[in-house]
């Protein structure tokens, strides 16, 4: 029967991908979990059972607490900043102004650049020196008479991560803009016009009609940006090197594993990262599937 033939074909078509993802994602994760439960320290693999001691060590570790704080600050500023800025840009570009294409490309191009390159440039821009050695954006502010804007950027205690997030917003807000713009264009014009006939002004239309309709876009953006921010690594290295005050789990893992050779502990950090990503992602996947079955 052709139905059976189709089923076999289906399975044949997707099975190479599934097998590959199974090995490269799930089997490797399993291996990492095993390492995280071992006493492996040094170059030689050592699978001596260690229970959850590596995890317990991390929770007692002051540095890991700093990492979690930094990740929360970075994620908050980066995700909210990119979404808000992306939405505002999209609404402005949605007005049908001349030169829309030019501005659109301009806001989108940072996405094309690697985090390494972005980091190199922003390291210069965010130079925190004061007095005669003022440089970077601070120098620009003082040229423009905006001295009150001068600040210590990423060397600010506690909130330094927010400055790193600014560079990330520069890179990714164009992408959220593109998402929202696509979403706005997909909303039928009649809806807008109907609202305007009911006496809603421009702002109200966006606030009460568009924004709720765009919630799937917001969710997608939230997920994509959220998982990028949990993995952020090369951007911080390029801007500030490896320093405690701007440490995040991904950097800590790299240092613990490759500089310190604590493979067990490094794998544990990797798994904890994975769990935090999963906490973010799994509800999203379930929600996606549920809305589809409802449709």
């Amino acid at each position, binding site marked *: 029967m052709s139905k059976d033939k189709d089923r076999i074909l289906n399975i044949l078509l997707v099975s190479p991908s599934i097998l590959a993802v199974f090995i490269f994602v799930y089997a490797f994760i399993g291996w990492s979990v095993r390492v995280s439960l071992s006493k492996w320290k040094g170059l030689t693999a050592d699978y001596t059972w260690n229970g959850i001691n590596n995890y317990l060590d991390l929770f007692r570790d002051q540095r890991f607490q700093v990492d979690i704080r930094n990740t929360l600050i970075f994620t908050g500023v980066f995700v909210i900043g990119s979404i808000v800025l992306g939405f505002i840009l999209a609404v402005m570009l949605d007005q049908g102004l001349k030169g829309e294409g030019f501005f659109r490309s301009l806001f989108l191009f940072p996405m094309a650049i690697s985090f390494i390159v972005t980091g190199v440039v922003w390291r210069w821009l965010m130079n925190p020196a004061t007095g005669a050695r003022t440089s970077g954006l601070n120098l620009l502010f003082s040229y423009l008479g905006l001295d009150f804007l001068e600040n210590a950027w990423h060397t600010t205690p506690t909130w330094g991560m927010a400055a790193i997030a600014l560079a990330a917003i520069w890179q990714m807000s164009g992408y959220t803009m593109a998402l929202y713009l696509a979403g706005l264009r997909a909303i039928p014009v009649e809806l807008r016009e109907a609202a305007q006939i009911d006496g809603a002004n421009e702002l109200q239309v966006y606030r009460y009609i568009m924004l709720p309709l765009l919630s799937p876009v917001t969710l997608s953006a939230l997920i994509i940006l959220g998982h990028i921010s949990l993995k952020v690594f090369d951007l911080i290295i390029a801007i500030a090197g490896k320093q405690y005050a701007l440490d995040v789990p991904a950097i800590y893992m790299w240092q613990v594993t490759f500089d310190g050779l604590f493979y067990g502990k490094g794998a544990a950090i*990797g798994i904890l990262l994975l769990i935090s990503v999963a906490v973010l992602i799994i509800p999203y996947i379930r929600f996606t599937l549920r809305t*589809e079955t409802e449709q």
Partner: protein
Amino acid sequence: MNTNLRPGKYWLYIPLILMAVFYLLPMYVMLATGFKSFAEIDLKTMWNLPKGIAFDNYVEAWARLSPSLKNSFIMVIPATLISSALGSLNGFVLAKWKFRGADVIFPFLLFGMFIPYQSIMIPLVQFMRSVGLGGIPGLILAHIIYGIPITTLTFRNYYASLPQELLEAAKMDGADMLGIYRHILLPISLPSFVVVLIWQFTSAWNDFLFAVILTGNEDWPITVALNNMAGSQIIAWNVQMAGSLLAALPTLLVYIFLGRFFLRGLLAGSLKG
């Protein structure tokens, strides 16, 4: 296209231009520094225009980066095309052919999109070496496999948004599954292909982590070569910035020339949550 320009909107150019300046500042620094001599480089004078337009730094950066530029292209093109093609097939199967297990397979693939690569780094290297896939082929394979989840998701969402009648009609005409894919879906998949190709091209081109652990110095892609221009001691920022621009050029061009299609593709239902 929304071209109902309403008068009185011209004030919008003020915030737009301000934002444009914000986006261009880093580019200005990159360009200006790239044209400066080493003696001219100082944090105090970073906003000054270069004294002259000299291409020395670009020539030097080119000399050092051109071999790896070739490696990057050899690596990125197949990785991008193959992962997009696989994504399209998977997306088609998962979206249009309800077989038992499809609902399990989709989240299974989707989750792979979001894993932190640090957590699979060491097994990845050991696996690649044990199967004898070194250098560029290994890197291509890694980019293809870790690209499958996102390409599959994009195509699946796009195909799922297409009206079912399209397929029913073809089925009535006696087309089999592959026929439907080949004659009905492929011709209208271009928008999604553009999105996925751009996305994959950018991420493979800009990847540093996989490149540095999977390739030797014969076959480094450009990100690693760029990183290597900075010695562990002296960093020639002018050449570094010139090199950064060279390294970013292909992806920049892709965005500048295909940005419109990228947006159109996003619009074509690739982002339905």
